[in-house]
Each structure stands twice: as structure tokens, then as C-alpha cells.
């Protein structure tokens, strides 16, 4: 199979391995043979000197350990039955311990002189890289939180606007239902009053033109105002125009064309027993009005329920908020934490992560109380909290 070779490969020439060449250091096999000191760079020589210093130190530390061992091994016996020997032995042991401590302290000084230099010259400078990176990442994280907060606020405002839009739609719908019902009932009441009047007056030929004129005088109500806070006038107009507008003329025509003929369908017969017919008509009208009112209330109630529906998912980046106890570093604060923790031990205990109860710290108690305060909104005497956003 022929393969194309990248151009840059032509600049390399791979020589066959020499039999006498040292094997490359793999990190696992034998270490490479040491280069002559003169061939090393000053930096390499410095590292070599460090290794030598380390070896010398370890030799000295080992010698120190042996010296300590010599002082504190083969300890004198504890002989309470021989008080004089016990006193002498105690003096000997105390001297030996004092000597051992002195040796150990001297060697610790030696070790510190070396390890402090390592810390100052190697560990701390090495850590500075990650510390600088951490600072950069933290700065970026702060910006990211700021952006998440902004996105979250926008999403919340959108959701609030959407809720207000829903409320506006429910308001318009319910107002239309109310206005329509009131108008219809006003028309029907007028028809009913006319019917009763005709019966009472024993009118042989009711003047329907007169009734129609009276009906046309009745005007539908007006919509109650909705207090807009977030929805713009343009959007409100858009929402209103998207809804089916109430047509009072259709109701007027329905009353003229259907309700009046229906009401007077048995007028001639009713006239023959006018008083009883009027009484029955009164009862029917009352029942009809009550039923219409009930249906209106029901329709408005369903509208209110459906108006609570979410029309859009709020899927904004989340900003986590939690409480953190402000540490006061006073005895009173520590006592307040301990006291509150003990009072609320049942709720706080599950929030603790302790390996040994003996190691439980006041700061851990404060952390558990802060978590509890965040969940329940409860505040604790002698403690203050700040909100942290993540």
C-alpha cells in the first residue's frame, strides 16, 4: 500500500541505532550513566548539588534518629517496690529524654532549613502557575455567573410578563362573558316585563315594534380596566384582537327573532288565564336568570383555572442561591452557633459530614445551620447569614 508522506517528514533523517549507544532512559529501566560534571549546565549542576545536599541531609537525619534511639531505647525499669532505684532511674530517663528532644529538635531545624528552601524555591513558585490559572478561571466564573444571572432575570421577567398576559386574557374573556350575560339578561328581562305588562293590561295585540325599540335602547356594559404592569399597550391590543370579540347585535337579533316569538308563542292562551300565566312566567324568568348566572360563574371559574396554565417553558440558566453564616470570631458567636445547633440537632445532623464526632467544629455547625436557614427561611439568634450565588 502506498501512503503519502507529509512534507515536513523529509526534514528528518532517522539514523540506525548504534550498538554502543546508551539505551534511552525510559523511566522504568536502569538510570542513564552519569554525564561528566564539566559537561553539565550550571542549572544541571545546581540540581545535582541539591540531590547531594538531600543525600547529606538524610544521612544526618538518619544519624540523628539513631542518636535519639540510643537515648530512648532500653529504658530503665519502673520499680515502685524499690523507691531509691526508682528515683535514680527516673532521673536517668528524664535526662535521656531531654537529650533525645534536643537531638530531635536540632535535626528538625536541619530538615526545615532544607525543606523550607524547597518550599520557597520550588513548591511555591510551582504553585504560582495554578494559582494564576485559578485567578483567571475565577474571573471567568464571575463573568459566567453574571451572565447566568442576567439570563435568569430576563427569563423570570418573560415568565412574569407571560403570566400577566394570561391574566389579561382571562380578564378580557371573563369580562366578555359577564358583559354578554348581563346584556342578554337585560334584554330578556325587558321582554319578560313587556309580556307581564301585556298580560296584566289584557293587550290583545302586543306592539312588538315598541318592544324592539325599547330593546335597542339597552346598551351592553363596558369592560372593567385591567391594571397592566409589564404587558405593553401594543401587546395588549394584539391579545385583544386575537380573541373573538363579543357581538351584542347577535344577541339582540337572537332575542328579537327567537326569544320574543318563543315568549309569546302561547300568549293568546295565557291571556285567557292571565294571572296564573303571569305568575308562572315570573317563576320561569327567575329560574332562567339564576341558571344563566350560575353558568356564567362556572365559565368564568374555568377560565381562571385555565388561565393559570403555563404557555411557555421557562428554561433559563439557573443561578443557585444558598446561605452562608458570617463568622464573627467571638466567643458569643461560637456559643450562639453551638446553642442553635443543639436546639435544631434533628434537622442539622443530616447535613453534617463528620468522620468522628470528637472532631466536630463550630464552623461545621454554622454551615449546617446556614443550610437549614436556606431551606426553611428560619433565622437563628446571634447569627447572621449572607446569600451566595453560584
Amino acid at each position, binding site marked *: 500500500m502506498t501512503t503519502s508522506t507529509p512534507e515536513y517528514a523529509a526534514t528528518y533523517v532517522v539514523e540506525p541505532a548504534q550498538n554502543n549507544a546508551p539505551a534511552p532512559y525510559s523511566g522504568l529501566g536502569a538510570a542513564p550513566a552519569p554525564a561528566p560534571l564539566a559537561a553539565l549546565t550550571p542549572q544541571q549542576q545546581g540540581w545535582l548539588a541539591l540531590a547531594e545536599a538531600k543525600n547529606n541531609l538524610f544521612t544526618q537525619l538518619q544519624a540523628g534518629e539513631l542518636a535519639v534511639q540510643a537515648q530512648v531505647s532500653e529504658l530503665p525499669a519502673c520499680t515502685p517496690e524499690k523507691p531509691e532505684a526508682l528515683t535514680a532511674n527516673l532521673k536517668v530517663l528524664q535526662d535521656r529524654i531531654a537529650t533525645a528532644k534536643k537531638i530531635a529538635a536540632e535535626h528538625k531545624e536541619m530538615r526545615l532549613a532544607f525543606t523550607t528552601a524547597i518550599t520557597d524555591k520550588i513548591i511555591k513558585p510551582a504553585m504560582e502557575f495554578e494559582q494564576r490559572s485559578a485567578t483567571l478561571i475565577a474571573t471567568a466564573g464571575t463573568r459566567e455567573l453574571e451572565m447566568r444571572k442576567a439570563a435568569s432575570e430576563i427569563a423570570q421577567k418573560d415568565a412574569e410578563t407571560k403570566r400577566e398576559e394570561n391574566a389579561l386574557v382571562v380578564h378580557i374573556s371573563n369580562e366578555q362573558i359577564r358583559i354578554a350575560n348581563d346584556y342578554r339578561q337585560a334584554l330578556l328581562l325587558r321582554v319578560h316585563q313587556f309580556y307581564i305588562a301585556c298580560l296584566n293590561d289584557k293587550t290583545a295585540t302586543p306592539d312588538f315594534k315598541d318592544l324592539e325599540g325599547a330593546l335597542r335602547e339597552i346598551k351592553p356594559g363596558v369592560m372593567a380596566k385591567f391594571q397592566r404592569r409589564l404587558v405593553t399597550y401594543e401587546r395588549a391590543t394584539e391579545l385583544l384582537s386575537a380573541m373573538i370579540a363579543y357581538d351584542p347585535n347577535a344577541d339582540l337579533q337572537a332575542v328579537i327573532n327567537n326569544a320574543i316569538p318563543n315568549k309569546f308563542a302561547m300568549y293568546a292562551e295565557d291571556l285567557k288565564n292571565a294571572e296564573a300565566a303571569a305568575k308562572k312566567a315570573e317563576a320561569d324568568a327567575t329560574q332562567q336568570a339564576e341558571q344563566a348566572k350560575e353558568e356564567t360563574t362556572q365559565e368564568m371559574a*374555568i377560565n381562571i383555572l385555565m388561565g393559570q396554565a403555563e404557555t411557555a417553558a421557562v428554561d433559563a440558566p439557573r443561578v443557585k442561591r444558598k446561605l452562608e453564616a458570617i463568622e464573627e470570631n467571638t466567643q458569643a458567636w461560637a456559643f450562639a452557633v453551638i446553642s442553635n445547633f443543639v436546639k435544631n440537632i434533628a434537622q442539622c445532623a443530616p447535613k453534617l459530614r463528620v468522620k468522628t464526632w470528637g472532631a466536630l467544629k463550630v464552623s461545621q455547625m454554622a454551615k449546617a445551620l446556614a443550610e437549614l436557614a436556606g431551606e426553611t427561611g428560619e433565622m437563628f439568634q446571634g447569627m447572621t447569614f449572607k446569600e451566595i450565588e453560584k
Partner: protein
Amino acid sequence: MSTASPNSLQVVNVRFYRDLEFSDYMRMPGYSFSWLKSGGQKIEPTPKMQLGTKVHNYLLSAREYLHAEGHELVRPLAVSLKGVLAPVLRYCSPELAVTADFVCQGMVLHYKGRIDLPVISKPHLSLVIDIKVTENDLRRSIDFFGYHNQVNGYALSIGAQRRVIISVNPKNGVTQVIPIAYTDDFWKMAVLKYGKPI
């Protein structure tokens, strides 16, 4: 005269059963949504399902709610739901059992359902309300469990023009109200799969 097309779903022989104990409802013949979903397998209720049942019982059939075996969350969740449902509760017939025959393409399926909160009224006022207790976003639960098909089954059986699912989250008591669109595809398929020839 009915002008329904042969492929449309028709609902006939509708019967309501008010105040029917759950155990009696379970013994009634008929295909319910739960049965169709599980293929007739008995599902052992999980603790979360048990909590949902308790909230249902406390809110909808208080007679069946065992206060002694209650859960500390039941009352607050029922209160949250009641806050949303308050406007319509007086029009509802809680835990109404219903049977009906669903007919499609010459096949008939005997349906049964127990509706949380139906409003039986004139068509434009009729409504099915179903209640769920879920930690998840309700939209996800609807998609995952097919609750829209359950609610549409209820709505078909009582002729309700509007359908809505209301959920409460047991973690924070937050409620969600999701209106459900009409679809009868699931029930047509059920009639064809499990129904009998007329």
C-alpha cells in the same frame, strides 16, 4: 343523523358511577388507560406512587383517606392543589367512574375510567381535570407516561371539550397547570388492538 366518518371514534353507552369505591371500580369490566399502558401487568406501587395516591384520596375522596397512615407531605401538597383548583371545585364530581363503548372501524372497546375531577355540564363548560404528584417537569412526565392519552380517554367518555392536568411537586409544593390538546389516536389504536367486532 350522525355523519361520523367510518374512521372516526364514536362513544356510546356512557354510564357514570358516583361514589364508587376504588376497589369496586377495579372489579368493573373494561379497559382502562392503566391497563392498556401496563398490558394488564400488576404494577407494585412505589413510595412515590403511594404518596400520590394519598394526596388524591385526601383531596378527592376524603372518605378513603386513612389519616393514621398519612404522610407529612400529604396535607401541604393537597393545600397547594386546592389553591389552584378552588375556583372550579364546586362544579366538579370528584373521582367519577365512567364506562363507555368506544367504536371505530366496526370494532368496539368497552372502556372504563375513574376521573379525578370532571365538570359535567353543557359541552362548552365540560372539563376534565387530572391531578399528578411529580417531582419532574409536568411536560416531561406527560410525554414519558402518555398522560395526555389518559386524559383524552376521560374527555372522550364524558364528552368534555376541555382537558387539563395539574401537578404538584412534592419537593417544593409548586403546581403546574397544563392544558391538553385533543387527540384520539391512542384510543383508536386501542379499539383496533383490543376491541371486538360489532
